């Protein structure tokens, strides 16, 4: 009996220790949250308690103005549509070019596929740095060098996208079956042919799915970069806000356009991604 009791005691002690650790972690988390909130509240211009009572002031103001001048809205939607297209174009081109760069980086940094296996860490670190680079940093520096417009935003998003997608692409490529590659090698295929025909078909669905997800993220980034001076709908929003009272119908029109675009693209890309990853049912 004594022998049987020992593991039970061990188990209970283990459970107790686990609970203790859990409790310590929980307390630590609560303390961090509470003190973090205190600090953030203290360093903010307006306090949380004061601001929370005014949260709806601005939406109320712009909505009442938009309701009063609702006849203007369709006109503004048409007026701002070209900027929306510009924002979308920035995101789309950046996703395309970034995706191609990411594919190259991913192949060069995946074991078993890399052309120069020794250079794998170099490409990995390069991707880490590109991924860590917030778009606004690159965009602001490029605005200084190239002037305003969509190009700085595009390049900024490309830099981040190639790093972020490159990592995901490389994770997918690592799980690819290398047998087709070996088979191709036995027929005398070159490196590019091995990658294109051996790995390409295996990774294409997941890579496209990640790229679509990135496109959603990049639309938001592109809108934000417009706000700091590189064209598109974000820039229009900034000017409309600067006009202030009396022009809030424009703000509402831009909000509407942005909201609808994001919901539309999200829905479409959700469906497309589900189809890509699960695959079509072939009869």
């Amino acid at each position: 009996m004594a022998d049987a009791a020992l593991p039970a005691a061990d188990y209970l002690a283990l459970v107790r220790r686990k609970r203790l650790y859990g409790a310590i972690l929980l307390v630590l988390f609560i303390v961090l949250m509470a003190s973090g909130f205190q600090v953030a509240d203290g360093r903010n211009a307006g306090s949380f308690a004061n601001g929370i009572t005014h949260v709806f002031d601005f939406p109320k103001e712009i909505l009442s103005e938009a309701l009063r001048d609702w006849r203007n809205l369709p006109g503004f939607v048409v007026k701002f549509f070209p900027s929306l297209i510009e924002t979308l174009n920035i995101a789309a081109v950046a996703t395309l070019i970034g995706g191609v760069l990411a594919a190259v980086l991913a192949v060069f940094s995946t074991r078993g596929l890399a052309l120069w296996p020794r250079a794998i860490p170099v490409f990995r670190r390069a991707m880490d740095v590109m991924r860590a680079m917030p778009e606004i940093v690159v965009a602001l520096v490029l605005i200084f060098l190239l002037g305003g417009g969509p190009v700085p935003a595009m390049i900024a998003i490309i830099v981040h996208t190639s790093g972020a997608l490159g990592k995901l692409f490389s994770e997918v490529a690592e799980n690819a079956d290398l047998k087709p590659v070996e088979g191709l090698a036995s027929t005398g295929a070159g490196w590019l042919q091995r990658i294109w025909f051996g790995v390409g078909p295996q990774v294409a669905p997941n890579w496209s799915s990640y790229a679509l997800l990135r496109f959603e993220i990049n639309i938001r980034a592109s809108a934000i970069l417009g706000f700091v001076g590189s064209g598109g709908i974000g820039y229009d929003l900034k000017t409309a806000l600067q006009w202030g009272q009396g022009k809030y119908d424009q703000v509402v029109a831009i909000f509407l356009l942005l909201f609808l675009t994001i919901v539309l693209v999200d829905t479409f890309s959700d469906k497309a991604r589900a189809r890509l990853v699960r695959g079509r049912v072939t009869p």
Partner: protein
Amino acid sequence: MSTLSQPARLIVEMELARGFGRRRLRMIALLLALAGYLAYVFAAFDIAGVASRMRPENAQTLLGDFWSHKTHVTLDRRKEGLEVAIEGEAKGRYAPNAFPDWVHTGAQTVVDLPDGAQIIYTETGAWVDYPGFGRITVTRDGRRIDLALPAGAQMPDWISASRTRVNITGSWWRFSLTPARTETFRYAPGWELFFFTLDSPYHGKGLGDLAALALWEPRLEPARSNFAGMVEDIWTNKMWRHGDVVWALGETVLMAFLGTMGAGLVAFPLAFLAASNFAPGRLIRLALRRMFDFFRGVDGLIWMVILSRAFGPGPLTGALAIFMTDTGTFGKTFSEALENIDAKQVEGIASTGANGAQRARFGVVPQVAPVILSQLLYYLESNTRSATVIGALVGGGIGLLLTQAIITQKDWEEVSWYIVLIIAMVMAMDSLSGWLRRRFIKG
């Protein structure tokens, strides 16, 4: 193949060839469409015009500032005395009795330059002794400026002169004379005053001296110990504001932490109500789903605009903006995770007579915890980077410092320092979240 008759084999081969042909055609069509789209966008973005609008001189300042600094030696006719200041800033001004050793004051001011050139500030202007060229005399006559080259010399391309301004460029220095001021800029590699500003007693000391001072040498100032003095002088460095920068980095991480974790805390209980296998009613479920979609669909940019109006600039506003969009995202992904759990585990717990809370705690949470935790950590990491951008817009954290430094278009060495710090911060959060994921979510 060998079992097929000759005609049948031909047909199969033709079919195969046609299949390949069709696929190739589709590939070519896709590539052409992409090329067409890119051509349209590049035309719309006016890529060709970008080259003409490019400002290479800006690139030069930027690159120069990234790894060097300049010291201004200025004689302003409207002010008393000579001024020697790093980057021409009041924060970097040398005391009049402690000029650097390459500035000689006496009857005349003489500035020694790295390539052997010498500039002598005279009553009426300046002499520039350019090595291998001779003495250039610049004289000021009222509002007019005259330039005299050594006898027989041609005007070199490193001098640009007009009636009201003379600029001379050497290697590692530049000289400019206008009716109002005579100024020499001497460049040197490195970032100036990074640790101690000129007013600190520890300025200009080597690493060994500093270590000796910190460890055993007597106090330089009676009021504080040497080590405390060094730390304090670095922390309050007026040029680089290291203390403020550390606070700003902290604010940025704080924004990401509060926003992500707050969103997780709110979204978790709501996700139960929005998951089809737990929802008490279809209506609540659909309403919550739509609400999550709404919070996600309202772009972070819109939340930032609305929240800044109510809460003013600062880290709290940024945290709330992250909180808003992520509540929508987490609500969606958490409820999907809840819908994908294995019902058998919950039934097993129920068979022991467990109540609702116990079923959730021991039947559901262990199944979804890894998914939820890894989601939270992933978003914490990605929000650290977003918080830089959000901070730039709502006015808080390192993003604000960065935009301020870029907008003044002057302190590019600070910009590069901030960029280094931001990348280090994001990469540190990246490894921290990776470590936590491996530690807590095995397999």
